[in-house]
């Protein structure tokens, strides 16, 4: 120990945990080593400071329990409120999305479906009697209604 520095030993374990023999050899070393003596003095003071600090403790005040229970109730109430709000928000979201879906469906029925009917009539109008008779357009691609329109549509209009 006499030739070894004790700084590492001082850092490895609390000073109070050193045995008598260990402490004696540390003291013997620091007598002749200034660097280790400074470290030992500082470690000694550190240990005393920490013990003084650790001795300080507080007892709970008489109202502590009441305060904690009140805080617990408050926190639970806040949490419940948050859940209620979240539930309302979710319901409102569902309502809005179902309304949007209804509006979209109505829009489809109102604007897209009638256009499809018109398109059918327009297609029928493009066929002529000659094209049908001479099979230019291909019968298999025409509906019965289209055939009738192409054959008699013009005559009916002329008769009117």
């Amino acid at each position, binding site marked *: 120990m006499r030739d070894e520095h004790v700084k590492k030993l001082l850092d490895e374990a609390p000073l109070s945990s050193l045995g008598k023999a260990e402490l004696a050899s540390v003291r013997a070393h620091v007598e002749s080593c200034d660097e280790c003596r400074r470290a030992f*003095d500082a470690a000694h003071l550190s240990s005393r400071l920490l013990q003084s600090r650790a001795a300080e403790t507080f007892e709970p005040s008489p109202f502590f329990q009441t305060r904690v229970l009140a805080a617990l109730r408050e926190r639970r109430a806040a949490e419940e409120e948050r859940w209620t709000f979240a539930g309302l928000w979710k319901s409102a979201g569902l309502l809005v999305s179902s309304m949007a879906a209804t509006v979209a469906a109505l829009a489809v029925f109102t604007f897209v479906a009638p256009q499809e009917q018109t398109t059918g009539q327009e297609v029928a109008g493009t066929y002529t009697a000659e094209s049908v008779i001479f099979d230019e357009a291909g019968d298999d691609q025409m509906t019965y209604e289209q055939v009738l329109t192409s054959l008699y549509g013009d005559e009916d209009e002329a008769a009117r």
Partner: protein
Amino acid sequence: MRRHSPRVFRTASRFFRRREQVEEAAQEVFLKAFTQLDTYEGRGSFEGWLTRITTNTCLNLLRSARRRPELSASDLSEDEGAWLEHNMAGEAAARQQSFERGVVAADLADKVLSTMSEDDRVVLMMMDGEEASVKEVSEATGWSESNVKVKAMRARRRMREAVEKLLGI
């Protein structure tokens, strides 16, 4: 709560020095314990579980109010300077002890500790202040035992160096 309050207060007192701070931390600990009671699996002791919650809560509170000023001899009060001087000069044991038991030493300890990290503070207070074992610190903090040993060694060195700097030696 009555049964466990002293233990929680004692643990929180390692981290804070003002009564309001200790009470605030203890309140937070009990609120957490109430809300996390279902996570206690009954494997370890309930006291150990509560100590761990206390340690972690206090560490988090300290971290959120992080302030680690540099400490120099000029920051010491007259009493604190005197305490150091008397201890260095090897005054009578009775006088030293009366000083050590007093607020001055605790004030000074707190000043030195405030310049260190939260982890250093915990490990020093527990191991060197209260003579807790490595295992106890490991259980309270959730750090591995080897981690506790390394942290303790580094913290002791930093504390020693801070005191050396204060003493101007």
